């Protein structure tokens, strides 16, 4: 794991456009190891675009991005250290909830770092009653819980979460925020999440960055 003082994410003068529409004009931000950063802003502000740039899935039009000491690379080694939870995934039709979590463990073996084992995750994410169910039969909130559980079933240095609070009930949002604040971040993991939920960000102890008119400004705590 990287030391707490080391910067895991460094963005300077990021510029991204879709055709003639400029979404991010001049965005600069940073996140240290063990830090939680909440990126906020109105719909269409460019939060998800910023996350996809950090994940290396979108090439910016200008500026520099450094993640874990280098540019985002979209390689096997990179995905060993970075997790992206964006849109709901497509589930394997023949696999149960528990098997999806085990699959994530298997693809990321050998596990070397902080993570929760499948049994713990199923309990923590209140999926015990549906552990042998097919994800397609779950409610949208339960599927979101499963997505997030899979993200924490493997060790990582950086969690990129796109509106993790989506479809979650208020009680579980607080539990999730506490888990990130009390367990994931203290182990050295960094979280950059796009969210609209101010309370969720506050409970997680996140530093808040507001994206407005293509630029990022830090919000007072």
């Amino acid at each position, binding site marked *: 794991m990287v030391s707490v003082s080391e910067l895991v994410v460094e963005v300077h003068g990021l510029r991204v456009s879709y055709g003639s529409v400029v979404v991010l004009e001049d965005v600069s931000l940073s996140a240290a190891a063990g830090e939680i950063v909440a990126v906020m802003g109105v719909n269409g502000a460019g939060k998800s675009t910023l996350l996809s740039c950090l994940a290396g899935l979108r090439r910016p039009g200008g500026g520099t991005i450094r993640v874990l000491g280098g540019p985002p690379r979209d390689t096997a080694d990179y*995905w060993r250290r970075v997790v992206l939870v964006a849109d709901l995934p*497509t589930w394997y039709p023949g*696999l149960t909830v528990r098997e999806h979590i085990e699959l994530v463990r298997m693809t990321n073996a050998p596990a070397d770092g902080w993570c929760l084992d499948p049994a713990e995750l199923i309990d923590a994410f209140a999926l015990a009653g549906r552990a042998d169910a097919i994800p397609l039969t779950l409610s949208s909130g339960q599927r979101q819980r499963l997505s997030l559980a899979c993200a924490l079933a493997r060790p990582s240095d950086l969690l990129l979460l796109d509106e993790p609070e989506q479809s979650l009930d208020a009680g579980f949002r607080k539990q999730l925020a506490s888990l990130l604040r009390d367990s994931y971040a203290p182990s050295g993991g960094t979280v950059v999440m796009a969210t609209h939920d101010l309370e969720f960000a506050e409970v997680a102890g996140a530093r808040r960055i507001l994206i407005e008119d293509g630029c990022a400004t830090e919000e007072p705590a």
Partner: protein
Amino acid sequence: MTTGTTARVASAVPRTATVRKFTRRQRQGRWLDWYAAGFGVLLACIYLGNFLVQPLRRLSSGARDLPVGQGETGLALVVAAAAGLLLLAQSLGPLTLSPADASWLLMSPLRRRGLLGRSLGVLHGVGAFAGALLGILALAMAGPYVRAFTPARLGEWLLLAAVTGGALAVAAVDALVFLQPYPRRARPPARVLLRVIALAAVVVAVAGEHWTGLARTVARGLAPVSLAAVQAVTAVAVVVAVAAAVAAWARLRSFPADVLWADSAHAGRVRLAAAFLNVQLLGWIAEDNYWRGRVLASRPWPARKPWQVRPPGTPMFPAFLLAWSDWRRLGRRPGTLLALAASAVAPALVAGALTGSARGVASAAVLLFGGIAAASQGCAALRRDTNDATLRRMIGAVPRPSLTARTALPALLAAGWLALALGLLASAGVLHASGASGVPAPLLWATLGLAAGPGLAASALRLARTAPIDATALGGLDTGAGTMPSWLISRIFSIVLGLVGIFPLVAGVISAFGGLHGARPGSLSHGLSGGTIIVQAVLSAALLSLYVLTASPPGSAPGE
């Protein structure tokens, strides 16, 4: 909430094969998958066998007295088929994973090459197989014109043709794989190029039927080809294919995840729709693909005219707004209208291509289905509303007035298409009319087409409002030879409705052909008059009105 643990598990770095074994092991009903795949392969072998019998017989007979245009036409059609297959491959990726694999294995520590190797292998296998078939077909078309070709060495020629075709196809799909990571820059030009090649090949094929100069040039070019020259071409093709395959394999290592993710999701939807023969869903996917990424200038909705002022709550205005969406959509896709106008020549082509008493029936069938297809171009929004009536409810449109407002565009499209098609048939001299009225035949037949439009609109509206195919649904009509599924019955009924709606037109066309060939002289071919046109207009208008009055409210009961 739990605090978790710091895992220190000393296991090997995962291999894709191990992970895939896990996902496959858990899958239920595997024997059924194998049975379905085996049955599909068996059917494909039977059809391909039948398909290849004729060309192989032609080659083994050693016939040399073929018409000069056949070689050129055949080769052009093989080129068109190859371009069409490559277009299809490109529209699906061509390199994709299953949507679930893309979600769970793509952005993981698994090596990208290990993950994609199997997909590339399948792509090469399918490409080589299709290429080999096209190579054999090309030989079947060109072989009789090649002096050096002898049935005694048929095996050698077939092998060379198959290997050359397969190798060129592998090189071509690898080229598409190289272009895949650049969806905005490289794919559109490649798509345009392939379409131009396909179109040019079709034009050459059609031209060869009438313009013997081109056909003779091709035949002269084929005549001196030697076996050694073909061997050299095969060797070059194999070298190119191997180089392309190696380069593609090397490219897999850093194949971008975002492109694969999007292409895999798209290909997954298309495969699912194709597997269930869900034409509606395929239509939606094509429609979505067309509009995605396009920047349109928003325009105001049509303003209410002073003479349209009605008491508050009158439903016609929202219904009109809803119907206007299809007009606007079509206005933004002028290419569709051009394609429809161009396709109006189809009945005339069919009439020219076929001979004997079948001509009238075939042309009438093309008119029926072509008219329904034209009318369906004005039903896209209605099709969506049937699946999800949210927009209609949001606008506040009442179901039946909405359906009434939506009849205008399909009726107009069908009428326009039929008028053009019948006018062309009459202009080509295929259809005649009574000269007593002094009205030119094309005008008379075109008027009959205009009168028949609403009849086909009813059919197209009913088809658009039919629920998507559910291949797993039970029940249907017991025919004695098996159960006919209800979705098929519903669609057949819609076609029959269209046939009833334009019956005077169909009868007129068949009768006109009969009159032309002396089978039934004195029939409608010599008696197409204002009376027939009025009968057709009344019938089609009555049928459309009856359909609108009796159809269940749109959105409330999909599937009629």
